[in-house]
């Protein structure tokens, strides 16, 4: 795996994800919270091809970036706080899930990326909500509503799955540049 190329593609995707969210996000006016995660399909795509250990570290780092670029509101303090962990662990679990079932998938099929991105985003969402909800049991310093948040993340997961379809067409020509190869094809 060409780590530099993957980081570059991930950087662009995260920027595009944040830039597009207000325009393509779904939801009522001023609260377009259901937006696709474009970085996750990249993690899923890399997880389909790359060695397990590299994938897990990459997922963790991608999750940390997601956490650092998404602050939480601190209740009453009119300030923000960055929780580094929920997104990172969520992405890690999503990557582990893909690693577990990648042997059964037709990796070149765009639908595989779409379905795995949807499931991965849903898993990452559940894990992140679970961690922050666990935290909310001890500290009430952040504005947090687990129910609506989980619904939003499930909506975003579906949107991520849909967005992964065109992304798979973008990733395919970049496969070589990112140093990703299908192990079965390589053996032949």
């Amino acid at each position, binding site marked *: 795996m060409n780590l530099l190329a993957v980081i570059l593609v991930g950087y662009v995707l995260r920027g595009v994800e944040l830039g597009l969210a207000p325009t393509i996000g779904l939801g009522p006016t001023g609260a377009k919270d259901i937006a696709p995660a474009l970085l996750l399909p990249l993690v899923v795509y890399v997880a389909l091809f790359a060695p397990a250990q590299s994938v897990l570290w990459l997922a963790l780092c991608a999750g940390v970036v997601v956490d650092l670029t998404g602050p939480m509101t601190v209740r009453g303090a009119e300030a923000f706080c960055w929780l580094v962990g929920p997104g990172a662990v969520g992405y890690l679990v999503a990557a582990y899930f893909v690693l577990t079932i990648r042997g059964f998938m037709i990796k070149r099929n765009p639908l595989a990326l779409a379905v795995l991105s949807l499931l991965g985003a849903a898993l990452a969402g559940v894990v992140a909500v679970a961690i922050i909800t666990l935290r909310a049991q001890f*500290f009430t310093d952040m504005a947090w509503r687990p129910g609506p948040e989980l619904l939003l993340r499930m909506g975003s997961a579906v949107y991520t799955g849909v967005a992964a379809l065109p992304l798979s067409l973008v990733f395919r020509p970049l496969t070589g540049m990112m140093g990703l190869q299908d192990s079965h094809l390589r053996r032949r």
Partner: protein
Amino acid sequence: MLRGHAHLRQGHQRTPLALTVVMLVLLCLLPARWLTWVSWFAGLADTAIIPVQAPVRNAAAWLAGRVSAGDVDSPELAAAREEAERSRTLYLQTLEEVSVLREQVEALQSGRALSPGLMGMAQLVAPVLGEQQAGAGRVLKVRAGRSQGVVAGDPVTFRGVHLVGRVVGDVDMHFSRVQVITDKAAGSAAGPDRGRINGVVILGETDGRLPPDPMAERVQCLLTPTGDGRLSGDVAGWAARADRSQPRVEVGAIVRLSDERWPASAQMLVLGRVEREDTKPNQRQTIVVAPIFDPAKIREVIVRASGEGTNGGGGGAP
């Protein structure tokens, strides 16, 4: 045997990963006040991501035909409307200021402390760099920071009259974060009115016209962000009359900020327009207020900076 070695090696490789995960989980179980140092890394991440995020956001808004104004008026008509709205706001601010000055005179006479006024305030034109999800709400990242005199609490407007929100959190050297007025956490931070915003409706104010005595026609309302980009709340009653009758606020009325917990420079700025009204069983009227301009479509804001910059001011007043 070989497989056993492979498993052993894999186990060794995964130990740092497992430790990192445990550390991250423990990190996010810490109280928020112990995590302030993370904001430095977040600032770095933000700065790094802006060169991609900002052009994509602007291009997407332009492509979607959602350029800041989003109206269909001709440029001349739009400019005239804007000018009229600015004049009206200035007039109302002057009236409000006169009223405050009267109170200050009374306060001075009784030996009470003065509240800070509008002096020394700079208006900075700041491009919106992007938006961020912040827990239950959203924040705007704008290119105006500590170097230009922006401090936490400074009000942020669109076209100088529409209140977008206020600067919150740690202000970076070159950019700051704005909590949008419709954000769940945008109301007052403490006290009995926690989470609420005081607004006024001037009865008889229509597009381009004010009633002869606007200060007498003020009706107070106590608004709460609903979380869907709107504010809602009860119409409290006349602000400056002994009249006990219940005033009626019409759909389409303009709602302005009149909240002493906000800076003087934010008073009488436009919060939005009444979108719906209803009457409770106790005959009290409730209203739903929607901002006239959707913060998601805004590409440029004006920050009313109250601090002192290090680079000799900023963009200047529009």
